[in-house]
């Protein structure tokens, strides 16, 4: 198997990553912008992409901006705000079809990058080069509604509350969208200042996958992005933190039919570490798949849940468990899950568990290559962690992991927080 074939380049403050391929019917573009996650800046930074997506200097009216996207054969355009380790990341994503399938008069890749360049560096403004006050005010409302809506999805709400409680004295407790109380104070002036600061400080990575080359992308970006000189900002890798001590149990009430049981574990291993492949296996054997301990014991054997799974966050060095159960079964389910953690710690993994989990991880790493966006996300992990490791290399490392190495990870794992969302009734 070949190494990652991204061609790397740089243009002023932006790192360029281009993967030339004819496998897809599209060009996939992702622009990442990362800043350290901080209480003082998290909210205005989260608001920036909401305002930028409303229009550009060339097409300041939102409706005209959306029409431009439709004219590019309905180019997909979206953004996301999330946290990775101690960074707050904004990702703009575009997907546009390759011109050869349609009788287009404009080259679609350059038109898309031009639009993205405008969004990032040449937004719609009022006089005085201030971000449009109308858009700032409207998107403050949208941001507030987004934050309020987190509670609508109880599974996600419980997962986020668990992390918030677990990391209550770290920046990671912050929601990527920011804090409700900070929204009202934001003005067009203050947001414009934050935007300029963000442009000059954030770490920018632009990815393009499709039938193109690094040279072509570089030429288009040079024309399409109004960039000041300078060098790209690096990501600082996150030291994995641990707060040893007692397990905290948080029980919260809400009008729910089903109890949502979540647990947060410190795995004390990060993406860039040598034992990260062993941590992947730890998570896979514990709860990553339908053959894993959690699924087998909580669901198949005890019939307590429809879903019972674990998820690894390598950038933060934590593992989270989530399950939906009958409220009265809290003790039973907690007990079964704790037994699985204990069994992980004891280091007894069957040959079958090992080989099944390795096969599933290997399959996932091979499948990445069939999706442009997945290849981009995977490659961005290397930028974030500072650890160069292609999917093929990670796959080989996973294949080589021994039971003893997984047990070594398991011995470092600490249960930190148990969070249970239940109904309002007393027992």
């Amino acid at each position, binding site marked *: 198997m070949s190494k990652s074939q991204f061609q790397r380049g740089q243009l002023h403050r932006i790192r360029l990553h281009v993967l030339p391929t004819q496998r897809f019917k599209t060009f996939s573009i992702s622009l990442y912008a990362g800043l350290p996650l901080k209480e003082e800046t998290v909210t205005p930074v989260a608001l920036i992409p909401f305002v930028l997506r409303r229009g550009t200097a060339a097409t300041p009216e939102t409706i005209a901006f*959306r029409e431009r996207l439709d004219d590019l054969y309905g180019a997909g355009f979206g953004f996301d705000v999330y946290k990775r380790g101690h960074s707050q990341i904004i990702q703009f994503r575009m997907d546009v079809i390759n011109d050869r*399938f349609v009788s287009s008069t404009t080259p679609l890749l350059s038109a898309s990058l031009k639009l993205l360049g405008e969004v990032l560096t040449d937004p719609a403004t009022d006089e005085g080069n201030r971000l449009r006050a109308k858009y700032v005010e409207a998107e403050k409302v949208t941001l507030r509604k987004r934050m309020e809506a987190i509670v609508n999805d109880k*599974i996600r709400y419980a997962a986020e509350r668990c992390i918030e409680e677990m990391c209550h004295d770290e920046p990671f407790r912050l929601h990527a969208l920011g804090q409700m109380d900070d929204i009202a104070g934001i003005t067009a002036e203050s947001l414009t200042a934050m935007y300029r600061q963000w442009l000059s400080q954030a770490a920018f990575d632009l990815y393009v996958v499709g039938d193109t080359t690094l040279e072509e992308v570089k030429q288009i970006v040079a024309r399409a992005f109004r960039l000041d000189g300078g060098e790209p900002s690096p990501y600082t890798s996150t030291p994995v933190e641990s707060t040893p001590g007692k397990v905290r149990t948080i029980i919260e009430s809400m009008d729910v039919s089903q109890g949502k049981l979540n647990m947060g574990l410190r795995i004390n291993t990060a993406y860039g570490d040598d034992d990260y492949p062993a941590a992947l296996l730890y998570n896979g054997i514990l709860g990553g798949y*339908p053959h894993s301990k959690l699924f087998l014991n909580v669901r198949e054997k005890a019939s307590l849940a*429809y*879903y019972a799974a674990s998820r690894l966050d390598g950038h933060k060095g934590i593992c989270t468990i989530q399950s939906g159960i009958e409220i009265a079964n809290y003790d039973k389910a907690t007990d079964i899950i704790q037994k699985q953690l204990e069994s992980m710690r004891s280091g007894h993994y069957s040959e079958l568990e090992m080989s099944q989990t390795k*096969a599933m991880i290997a399959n996932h790493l091979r*499948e990445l290559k069939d999706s442009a966006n997945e290849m981009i996300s995977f490659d961005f992990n290397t930028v974030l962690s500072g650890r160069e490791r292609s999917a093929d290399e990670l796959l080989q490392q996973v294949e080589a992991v021994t039971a003893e190495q997984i047990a070594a990870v398991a011995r470092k794992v600490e249960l930190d927080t148990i969070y249970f969302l239940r109904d309002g009734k007393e027992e």
Partner: protein
Amino acid sequence: METLAYPGVMETLYREIMPNGLEVVVLPKEGFSKTYATFATRYGSIDNRFAVDKGDPISVPDGIAHFLEHKMFEEPTGDIFATFASQGASANAFTSFDRTVYLFSATEQIPANLETLLDFVQHPYFTDENVEKEKGIIEQEINMYRDNADWRVYFGLIDALYHVHPIHIDIAGTAESIRQIDKETLYSCYETFYHPSNMFLFIVGGVKPLDVMELVRNNQARKTFAPQGPIARYFDPEPASVKQPRKLTALPVSQPKCLFGFKEHREPLEPNALLRTELITKLMLDSLLGSSSPIYHELYDDNLISDSFGHEFNSSEDYAFSVIGGETRDPDLLIERLREAIENTQKSGLNVQSFERTKKKKIGGYLRMLNSPEAIASEFTRYRFRGADLFKLLPLYESITIEEANKRLREHFNWDRMAVSIVSKGAK
């Protein structure tokens, strides 16, 4: 094996009908690491009354198709997920209104995984004990959806639109209905709907069509299925009116979620007309209400809709309805404003530029979808079961005229056949 070339989208399909009636289609994707296979039966939640070969109709409990899907994963040797995991494949299944689909995705051991897929779906293993055990799991699945506001508002709308058609029944059934399920009913549903002549196998990815066909042919030759006549599905006549104009559900949500839709009452259409009508209606709705329409921007500026606002149109031989809406601060004002805008557009007709732009957008969206093996398999099967061909949509989209869209604009929105479903904190 026949070869079907689609130069417009640069794809080639290979198709064969096995002697037992199973239809197989292979789409090789050069350069892809993964293979994605779906094995589907024309059997979903709405098939709750049926007969085979002109026999007596039988009625089965709600949620049984979905229950059956769960139980297929159990074999005397254990859970089939474990077999797939040993072969590096991730497997899954889902049940919709009109089909049940079993699938895997893998990068290695494709022949072994294909055999596993064919064998486990063609081998039911139900015992009193394993059927009983599943009830607790499915009850938790039902409870999970009860807490899901998006699910509740969506199925609440369908329930408000339909009096008798089983589309208004939850796909998973209820805690009460699944308690009535036993292994005998499961076997009789299985034998009726999992006959190869009622099933469809689709394989997309880095495979060679000749090898795949040979594998399937040999696999099927090892099994015997008694020939089966046609399956009749019975639906009571559905009134033209909606069942309930307004359905309210109470859940702790930040803002009301509001979906409303229009129920169409019409004679069954033949497959091509059904498909064309569906595409025209979707195009019309997007041109009228999409994210680059004037009404969308007015409502967004007035804080009546959010990014969650959307629209869809669902149709089959015996039902057709739209779904419009999202989160809103004021459901009634939202509907009033949309009604005004729709009635104005009905008078003026759709804007020509906007219609042409929407057409471009739909064509782009269609081509982008063809990057995804999962989406291709799912959409191809959906269209196939309705007698249509996914790879023939491009010229169809191109041929739709604004006159057709305006005609649909004028006939679809019948305000006497509109229902609204609202999920909010206060609703009781």
